[in-house]
């Protein structure tokens, strides 16, 4: 029995949330009284496996195969299934990345299990594990218990555990290479190289102040109201995903997991409820201001200052007050 952290890498580069997952694994393994193991998947990954082995853990599995050079759902699922049958962990943790979302539910199904996805906290009450995840886009939390045979599978929300809590080991852990049995024929997805649509003309990461607009704005013509506040504050204008999807603002102004990740000195969220996909892109801001009609909107979870009210009254008043304050 062990806690297995499945770390994510691509082209020899770690996904930044891999270390958060390993830190969480160390903490939960300590609570459960079990050793920690980690798995790295790919081709020629011994350097990465060695790097992981410096952390405080019992073993690093280097899952090596030529067919794992590029990610595919079929390849990763087959390789990890074989490793799990051999390593027999009680708990398997992943970072909640786009890639994990693509294959981990399939892997869990092979064990008649369910992936508890996007977990924000976990606790062990005498060995009984409770996983906490969000429902209704962050408006409610739920405590989840998993039963059944086979390992518990969970993916962890970015930022829910801190990578700087990661402990190093006194000596390097063992690295064991695991070569799964894979054939090209069983991998049905044929991926092409990743690409970007176009160079970004707007670099929101350089902005000192960002005023960002969400669904609460209701229609495109109303964006002018928020634009005026941005002008008054000397801010860049940004938006949550639905606004860019609707074509009301260009995609390059989108903040969130599929857009830009920003950390300005001030972020003003106007009519943005604060779904996690948006929060991960802006919660690093030094000061966060939220204007929303719903006092229970998750955006207030991260806001330093807030006004609960009708944005069509509040935003023009703010713009006027800001102009006065700046003289």
């Amino acid at each position, binding site marked *: 029995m062990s806690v297995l952290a499945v770390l994510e890498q691509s082209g020899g580069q770690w996904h930044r949330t891999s270390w958060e997952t390993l830190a969480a694994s160390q903490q939960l393994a300590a609570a459960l009284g079990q050793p920690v193991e980690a798995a790295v998947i790919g081709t020629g990954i011994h350097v990465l496996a060695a790097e992981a082995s410096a952390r405080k853990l019992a073993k690093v599995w280097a899952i090596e195969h030529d067919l794992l050079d590029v990610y595919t759902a079929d390849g990763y699922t087959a390789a990890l299934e074989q490793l799990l049958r051999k390593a027999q962990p009680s708990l398997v943790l992943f970072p909640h990345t786009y890639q994990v979302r693509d294959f981990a539910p399939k892997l869990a199904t092979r064990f008649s299990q369910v992936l508890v996805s996007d977990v924000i906290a976990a606790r062990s009450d005498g060995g009984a594990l409770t996983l906490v995840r969000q*429902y209704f886009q962050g408006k409610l939390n739920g405590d*989840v218990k998993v039963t059944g045979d086979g390992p518990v599978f969970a993916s962890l929300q970015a930022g829910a555990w801190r990578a700087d809590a990661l402990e190093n080991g006194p000596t390097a852990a063992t690295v064991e290479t695991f070569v799964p049995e894979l054939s090209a024929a069983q991998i049905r997805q044929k991926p092409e*190289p990743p690409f970007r649509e176009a160079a970004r003309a707007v670099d929101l990461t350089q902005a000192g102040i960002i005023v960002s607009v969400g669904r609460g704005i209701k229609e495109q013509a109303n964006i002018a109201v928020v634009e005026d506040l941005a002008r008054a504050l000397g801010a860049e204008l940004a938006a949550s995903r639905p606004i860019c999807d609707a074509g009301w603002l260009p995609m390059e102004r989108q903040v969130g997991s599929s857009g830009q990740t920003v950390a300005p000195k001030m972020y003003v969220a106007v009519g943005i409820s604060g779904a996690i996909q948006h929060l991960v892109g802006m919660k690093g801001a030094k000061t966060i201001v939220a204007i929303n009609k719903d006092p229970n909107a998750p955006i207030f*979870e991260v806001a330093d200052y807030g006004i609960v009210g009708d944005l069509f009254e509040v935003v023009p*008043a703010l713009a006027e007050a800001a102009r006065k304050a700046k003289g």
Partner: protein
Amino acid sequence: MKILVAIKQVPLRDSPLHANAAGKWIDDGGLSFEVNEPDAYALEAGLQLKEQHGGEVVVLCAGPERAGQTIREALAKGADRAIHIAADNLEALDTLGSAKLLAAAAETEKADLILTGLQSDDVGAGQTGVVMAELLGMPHSTIIMHAEVKAGGIRVKRELENGWFQHIEMPLPAVLTIQSGSSKLRYATLMGIKKAKTKEVRRLTPAELGGLPAAVASIEKIYTPRKNKQTQIFEGDAKTAAAQLIEKLKFEARVI
């Protein structure tokens, strides 16, 4: 080509939500419902593929009686017929359980392509499509922006993180989970609404699909999250609140 689109009915966005008496799910009395938004994009993608290649779009929905309204709306937008897995208390199922019901119903259709939204607005597990694919032995891909049918399969544009994308090809039949905003949603026409009334809705019960699967993962308790951060809220009329906020931003946070 036969396209099956799995859709879910969820509470209207911005609904006031409270835990039910058992504390394990929300009290849905008095709420209004709509189609899960990513599923609306899955339906749109299905309708567009049918327009290009011909065939049929079949909507698949598991839910209580009230889900019939969401099914009719999908038929009004242009789906040809529907399957309604009618049952109450489906929220007691976990993702594997609901995917088993949907997959069992999908087995009866032998579709070339199964589409669904990338996640639901209520549970948000983002797994139903992937688990269905595994249960049906089909290849899949998730967070799809665009799909193009080619000889011997399908080529999709998958969204990656941080503004990256990737094309992937796979054989059919396959399951795709569709990203919100991947295309513009159509409205139902008056003619569509009229026609929807006569379109076939095949009703199935969980019993006809092998029974309600027992849950492996279950919600012990659902609750409003406790705030970790102290937020200073300014009240009163807009003008007063705005003036107080700007003063704080200038003299306390020192950001303007």
